[in-house]
């Protein structure tokens, strides 16, 4: 269905995942193109987060696989996925609570930097320069998501909306090619959702492809270039929002047949 689209960044090929007898994902194939905002929606328990976890290496798929940026994604460890350029946020925010906002983003640079124990001990010039660069990049990213004034606060003391932003900043610190957002608007009010929409749009404009899992159908339809709908672990449709919105199967999946 989605074969041979130009400029693919991530191709899922018949990805399957079972939990005991539950088929959480059944042969899901889809393609995310470079530079787009790709929406993944579906009712509760449709398999959205499972798909996400397979892709980012948290789960190992039982069948099928992924091709990312032209090479197979051996998704057996999350840190490898991050190194390849897939960054994610979590549905229930997972920040490093007892570290400051700035430190949270600085940790995000880990995968793109390389100072080791000896460098830290002897503080050689290369390590110092790298550390300064990490700090500067982290400050820039805090500005980018507009929470720079909270830089020195423990991340657990940030407001809910700021924590969401911080998690995005931390993910961006890994220089991702694909940024995966797992229900970023969950629990947000109208104003906050609108600000988030602007942020996500801005990130895409600055060149990062985005995969968005979301419950807020209005946000998804307004923001995404293309949308895939999952129901009971299977792909229902993958198309532009205007087509998806009118699709009878999607309406049934959401409203119950």
């Amino acid at each position: 269905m989605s074969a041979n689209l130009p400029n693919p960044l991530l191709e899922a090929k018949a990805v399957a995942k079972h939990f005991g007898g539950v088929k959480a994902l059944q042969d899901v194939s889809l393609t995310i193109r470079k530079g787009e905002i790709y929406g993944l929606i579906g009712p509760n328990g449709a398999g959205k987060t499972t798909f996400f976890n397979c892709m980012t290496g948290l789960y190992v798929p039982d069948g099928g696989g992924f091709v990312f940026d032209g090479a197979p994604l051996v998704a057996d460890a999350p840190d490898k996925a991050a190194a390849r350029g897939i960054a994610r946020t979590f549905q229930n925010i997972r920040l490093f609570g007892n570290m400051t906002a700035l430190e949270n983003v600085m940790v995000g640079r880990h995968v793109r930097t390389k100072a080791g124990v000896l460098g830290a001990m002897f503080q050689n010039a290369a390590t110092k320069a790298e550390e300064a660069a990490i700090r500067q990049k982290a400050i820039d990213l805090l500005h980018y998501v507009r929470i720079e004034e909270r830089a020195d606060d423990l991340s657990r003391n940030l407001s809910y909306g700021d924590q969401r932003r911080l998690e995005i900043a931390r993910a961006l610190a890994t220089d991702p090619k694909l940024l995966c957002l797992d229900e970023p608007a969950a629990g947000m009010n109208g104003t906050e959702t609108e600000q988030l929409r602007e942020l996500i749009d801005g990130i895409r404009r600055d060149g990062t492809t985005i995969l968005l899992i979301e419950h807020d159908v209005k946000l998804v339809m307004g923001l995404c270039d293309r949308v895939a709908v999952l129901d009971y672990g299977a792909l229902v449709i993958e198309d532009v929002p205007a087509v998806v919105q009118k699709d009878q199967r999607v309406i049934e999946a959401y409203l119950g047949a």
Partner: protein
Amino acid sequence: MNFGRFFRSTAGIALTAAFLIALPFVAAMGGQAWVRILDFAILYVFLALGLNIVVGLAGLLDLGYIAFYAVGAYAWALLASPHFGLHWPIWAILPIGAALACLAGVVLGSPTLKLRGDYLAIVTLGFGEIVRIFLNNLNSPINVTNGPQGITLIDPVSFGAFKFSGTTQIFGFALSGPQKYYFLLVALAILVIIINVRLQNSRIGRAWQAIREDEIAAKAIGINTRNLKLLAFAMGASFGGVAGGIFSAMQGFVSPESFSLIESIMILAMVVLGGMGHIPGVILGAVLLTVLPEVLRYGVGPLQMAVFGKMLVDPESLRMLVFGLALVLVMRFKPAGLWPSPERKRELQETGK
């Protein structure tokens, strides 16, 4: 008052240095036993800071830390005593001890990578006991450790002809053995403090803290948690190994008794009581927990005589009672430790309102 800035200012450094230099001479007025207690306080600072890397930074609850200390102590004892007739120099033994302890850290670390919290604590506790029991029983068929009798006549630390045991005259000052060890230990402790501070504010240190806070999120941003946990175990263990070597040389005698579970628990208590992950707190915890029991040992008896005119309670058991009570009270009223990091303190004040 900002202590960090104080210790970095010239006046602060000068005052601290003067205090540290004067301390063993003041203590000597009460007898060499007090200097020896100081030596142990600093040795425990060293150990607690090593454990702080594992527990405070990486968040891996290690109840068998004393095992690495034992490995270092026996490495020194076997390579510098008449037991095997070996008398290797310090620059060979200390790195060997550290390396062996480091290896032991990796051996303990690799099967426990997926464990956290209580489960990890149980496994590490078992590991610590295994090492002690090994040392106790490795006297047959080949006598390696001399079993429960331990190893005696261990060489003191020496650089060339300069020995750390016995009294020497330097610039007209008579320096006793414990006083010389004191200065050696202070130098080592300063080194380990610098390493700790630098590690904490480095790429590796931040990754450790990230693992402590949320392992799944740490993995998701590309941290190889397996390698970093092994690194934390290895680093902490090598510090333990170095401390063990010095302990061995200072005492001139080691036996498996010195490496029991209670020792591991004491070191952990120093880290927790002082303020987990906060270096000044850990130092304070180590000094207090070493000195306080000794003060009680010498103070409780005379105090009773002065107040009641006779011994009401056996000083030895009262000592542990007061000590235990002090620990409970600190944890009740200062749950983040006596000297927690500023962030941690602020947070507790905020939630405590």
